[in-house]
C-alpha cells in the first residue's frame, strides 16, 4: 500500500503544463531536425527551419511555442496498491492546470458549455482525464496539451471487416489530404483500430501519446505504421501544407480486440508541436 498526497499531483501538473508548452524532448527535436535536413521543398525547409528555431526560443524565453496552448488531457495510470489522500484526484489535477496556465501566461482556451453560451471558463479547466487501474503501487500521469487545429481534422469511421486494410489506408491518406495546412503539418497521425466506437478514438489518442521513435511491438503493425507513413508523405502536402515530402513525422497504430461484425477506425491528428510528457508521482 502506497500513500500519495494529491497535492503532489497538483504540483506535477502545474509544472508539466508549462514544460510541454515551452520545452522540447530530445527525440522530438532530433526528428524535426531530421525532417529539416531531408525535406526537398525549399518552402518546406523554410517552415521546418522556423519550427526548429521556434522551439529553442520558446525554451529559452519561457514563451509558448504556439498561441494555442491547447486543452489539457491527462491519462492517469493508477496502481491498485495506491492510496490517495488529501482530496479528490480530479480536483487536484484541475488545480494544477489552473495554476500552470496562470503562472505560465498560457492562453485560456476552454468554454464551459459547447452549444448555447460558450463562455470561457477563464482558467483553461476542466482538463479531460482518463483513468486506468493497473497492478502495482505506482501513480503515473501522461499530461498533454492538445491544439485543436489538428484535433478538428480528426475522424472516426465504422468500417466493415471486408473493407479491411485497403480502406484504412485510403481513409488515412484522405484525412491528411483534406486537413492540408489546417492541422499544421508535419503531423503525428494516431490510428486506432478495433474495440468499439469510442475505444477506437481513445486508441488513436493513446497512439499520439507515444514517445517519438517507438514502433508497435507487433511487427505486422510496425510494418503497417511504416507503410502508412510513406503513403501520407506521398500526398505532397508537406510542412505547413506548403508542399513537400514530409507531411507526417510519424504514424502510430494501436489496436484492440473487436466484434466479428466490425472494423472501427479512428484517425487522430496531432500538430508538429506534439506536446505531452509522462511523469511518475513519487
Amino acid at each position, binding site marked *: 500500500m502506497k500513500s500519495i498526497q494529491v497535492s503532489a499531483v497538483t504540483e506535477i501538473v502545474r509544472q508539466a503544463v508549462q514544460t510541454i508548452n515551452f520545452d522540447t524532448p530530445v527525440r522530438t527535436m532530433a526528428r524535426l531536425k531530421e525532417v529539416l535536413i531531408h525535406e*526537398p*521543398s*525549399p*518552402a*518546406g*525547409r*523554410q*517552415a521546418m527551419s*522556423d*519550427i526548429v*528555431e*521556434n522551439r529553442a*526560443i*520558446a525554451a529559452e*524565453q*519561457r*514563451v*509558448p*511555442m*504556439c*498561441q*494555442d*496552448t491547447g486543452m489539457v488531457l491527462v491519462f492517469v495510470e493508477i496502481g491498485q496498491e495506491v492510496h490517495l489522500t488529501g482530496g479528490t484526484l480530479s480536483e487536484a489535477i484541475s488545480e494544477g492546470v489552473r495554476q500552470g496556465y496562470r503562472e505560465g*501566461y*498560457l*492562453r485560456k482556451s476552454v468554454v464551459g458549455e459547447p452549444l448555447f453560451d460558450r463562455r470561457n471558463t477563464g482558467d483553461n479547466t476542466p482538463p479531460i482525464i482518463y483513468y486506468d487501474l493497473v497492478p502495482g503501487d505506482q501513480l503515473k500521469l501522461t499530461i498533454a496539451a492538445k*491544439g485543436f*487545429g489538428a484535433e478538428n481534422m480528426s475522424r472516426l469511421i465504422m468500417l466493415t471487416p471486408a473493407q479491411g486494410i485497403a480502406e484504412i489506408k485510403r481513409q488515412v*491518406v484522405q484525412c491528411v489530404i483534406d486537413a*492540408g*495546412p*489546417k492541422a*499544421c503539418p508535419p503531423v503525428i497521425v494516431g490510428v486506432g483500430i478495433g474495440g468499439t466506437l469510442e475505444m477506437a478514438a481513445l486508441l488513436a489518442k493513446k497512439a499520439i501519446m507515444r514517445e517519438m521513435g517507438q514502433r508497435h511491438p507487433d511487427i505486422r503493425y510496425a510494418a503497417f505504421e511504416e507503410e502508412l507513413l*510513406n*503513403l501520407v508523405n*506521398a*500526398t*505532397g*502536402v*508537406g510542412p*505547413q*501544407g*506548403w*508542399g*513537400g*515530402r514530409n507531411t507526417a513525422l510519424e504514424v502510430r497504430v494501436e489496436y484492440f480486440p473487436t466484434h466479428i461484425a466490425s472494423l472501427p477506425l479512428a484517425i487522430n491528428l496531432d*500538430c*508538429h*508541436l506534439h506536446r505531452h510528457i509522462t511523469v511518475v508521482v513519487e
Partner: protein
Amino acid sequence: MSAAFRIITPFTDQAISGLKVGERVLLSGVVYTARDAAHKRLVETLLAGQPLPLPLSGQVIYYAGPAPTRPGQIIGPAGPTTSSRMDSLTIPLLEAGLKGMVGKGNRSQEIRQAIVRYRAIYLVAVGGAAALISKRVTKMDLVAYEDLGPEAIYRLEFLDLPLVVANDMFGGDLYEQGVAAYRDVEMLK
C-alpha cells in the same frame, strides 16, 4: 537555400510585383493585427461611409490575436490564425487600399482572384512558431477596438519576420502548386 528577399511596409506595386509564389521574404515595418471581430467592424465602418481607425493604403494586415504578455516582453505569443475565416470580409479592405495580408492556410478562389485584381499579396507565416514570430516584434501599440482584448487592432513593428509568398499578383497559389509538385500520384493509386 537561396537568400530571402527583404521587404518593407508599406507595400508599393513595384516592391511586391517582383515576388512570386513560394519565395521566402523577411518583412520589416508596420503591420496591423485584425481577426474576425475587427474585420467585421472595419467592413461595417467602410459600408457606412465612416472613416477607418487606421490607414489602409499600402498597408499589411496580420491575422493574429496575441496571447497574454509575460512581464518584460514586448508581446505574448502571436502566431497566425487561419486566414480563410476572414475571406468574406477582405474585398472591401482591398478596395480601400489594403496591399498585403499575413496569415496561415489557403484562401478562397474569390480572394485569390481579388489579390490579382487589386495587385496585392498574401504571405504566410508558420503555424506553431509563435515564439519566433513574437521575438521579431520590436514595438506594439493599441490602435482600435480596445474592448475586443486580444482581437483588438494592434500596430506591430516587425524586424525580419520570415514569411513565404502564398498568393502573388499573378494568380499563383502555394498550396495548390506546392502539393502538386510533391505528390507521388503513382504511389497513392
